[in-house]
């Protein structure tokens, strides 16, 4: 385990020395400040918002804002995860950084696992911190709290570490730049699947809803995000509930236990493919 922790530490040290964390913290603080400003204005003028009949204005405004913050949290987490992992194998091998490390007794599987672990140790706390900070801002400003407090945050974090696993898999085959582009495109596909669901609910079209559901399960980070969105308003019913399902960047959809099991299976498959491919790769 000493070798695994040495690589985890190496990754974290690099991020600190290259001032990655400093930039991330500064931009996150800016994001949260702007989010607070948005909340301040929206809840300050809540009486002027005229929602459709039978819709609770506060729930409507707060959950929409918080849903937006959840998308922002997911996006920032994904950016962090991708930039921490995009060149882990081929990128570092082409620069000559990888070879001195993997000839050591640590071995390739442990090396890859350590890179993922290092990324997860940064991204999970980061996503949870931003998620809870956004929740506190909405709660304190708008006096509204989501129906489920913890689980949606954990689902966002799970989505981010799943993206990190995909990014590590991509890094075995692709150069750093190509991998970064590929992973962001995959993330974008998930986003499109979510928007398709929104359109499907608005029309309404069962075919579109079904297509978006299949796409979201093929890219489970999107399904996790939709389940997290569902979690924050899961006890809201009626027209308010329906409108909230439309969501700002992808509709809320319940995934349940089967989604979590599917995500674990998906992660295991992605990890095994990455480990086997890395083990067979000439460096």
């Amino acid at each position, binding site marked *: 385990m000493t*070798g695994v922790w040495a690589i985890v530490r190496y990754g974290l040290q690099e991020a600190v020395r290259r001032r990655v964390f400093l930039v991330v913290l500064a931009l996150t603080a800016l994001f949260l400040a702007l989010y607070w400003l948005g909340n301040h204005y929206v809840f300050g003028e809540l009486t002027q918002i005229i929602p459709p009949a039978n819709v609770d204005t506060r729930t409507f405004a707060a959950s929409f804002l918080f849903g937006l913050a959840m998308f922002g949290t997911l996006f920032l987490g994904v950016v962090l995860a991708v930039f921490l992992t995009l060149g882990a194998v081929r990128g570092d091998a082409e*620069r*000559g950084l990888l070879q001195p490390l993997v000839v050591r*007794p640590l071995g390739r599987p442990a090396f890859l696992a350590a890179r993922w672990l290092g990324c997860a140790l940064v991204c999970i706390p980061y996503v949870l911190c931003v998620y809870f900070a956004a929740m506190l801002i909405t709660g304190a400003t708008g006096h509204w709290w989501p129906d489920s407090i913890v689980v949606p945050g954990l689902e966002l974090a799970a989505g981010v570490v799943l993206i990190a696993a995909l990014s590590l898999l991509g890094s075995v085959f692709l150069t750093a730049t190509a991998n970064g582009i590929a992973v962001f495109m995959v993330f974008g596909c998930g986003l499109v699947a979510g928007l398709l669901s929104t359109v499907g609910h608005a029309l309404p079209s069962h075919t579109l809803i079904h297509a978006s559901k299949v796409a979201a399960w093929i890219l489970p980070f999107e399904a996790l995000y939709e389940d997290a969105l569902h979690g924050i308003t899961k006890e809201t019913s009626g027209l308010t509930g329906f409108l909230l399902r439309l969501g700002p960047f992808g509709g809320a959809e319940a995934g349940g236990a089967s989604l979590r099991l599917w995500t674990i299976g998906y992660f295991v498959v992605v990890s095994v493919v990455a480990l086997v491919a890395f083990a067979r790769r000439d460096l």
Partner: protein
Amino acid sequence: MAVALLARGLAKRYGSVEALGGVDLEVREGELVGLLGPNGAGKSTLTKIACGLVRPSAGDVEVAGAPAGSLEARRKLGYLAELFRFPGWSNADELLLLHQRLSGSDGGEAERTELLRLVGLLDARTRRVEAMSKGMQQRLGIAQALVGTPRVLLLDEPTSALDPVGRRVVRSLLEELRGRGVSVLLNSHLLSEIELVCDRVVILLAGKVVAAGSPAELAQPRGIEVETDRGRRVVQGGRDDVPRVVEELVRSGERVYEARLLTSTLEEVYLDAVGGETS
């Protein structure tokens, strides 16, 4: 002497390109073997297979009796790649500490100090890699390869960026390592370096061994240079012919001042072996 590194029928193809075509090679314990050949001859591929970085298409390599790439082999191996880079943000001490952790070395600070002293970087201990010259980075690379006291050392062009003083430091280091029983496979284009330090030389051409032996074994006789009262000239013959040639000259009334056996240099041996190939 036990065999430290053994390659049998080693072959590697990259698509339609044959990088190695059935190489047999042996490095014994405490032996320093130089690997020579033009660019693309397969030297780096052979080294990488021995480290477990590249999988052979056929044949196998054993490092201290363990299959190349296995945990046991990696524990006994030190490696410096031809094209390597260390993270610019780390300093020399941190880099060696990382490799100590990865190799499971318990040498601690004493080992790091000793390695930095060996490569002449003790004063640059806390200097960041990005602030080091290429030569300093190469010396740090050699120190890194020595972390964990490896029994087999694979050095791919370790002196390519070094100035004459740096090369001399590395040469002394290699001789010291040989004294400690470390086996070294040295891949280099610097024939003079190889000639000075290596016990044996292996010349590769297009993935095949075209010459192998000690520098003395490989050297071809080029005649005997004699200096007499009638001047300096070269006569045909080898080492065994020297007494006869001198005797004949004396018998013919010449005064012999010097008789010197001429042999080919490693450079000449190399050029003969590769037939002028550059890549």
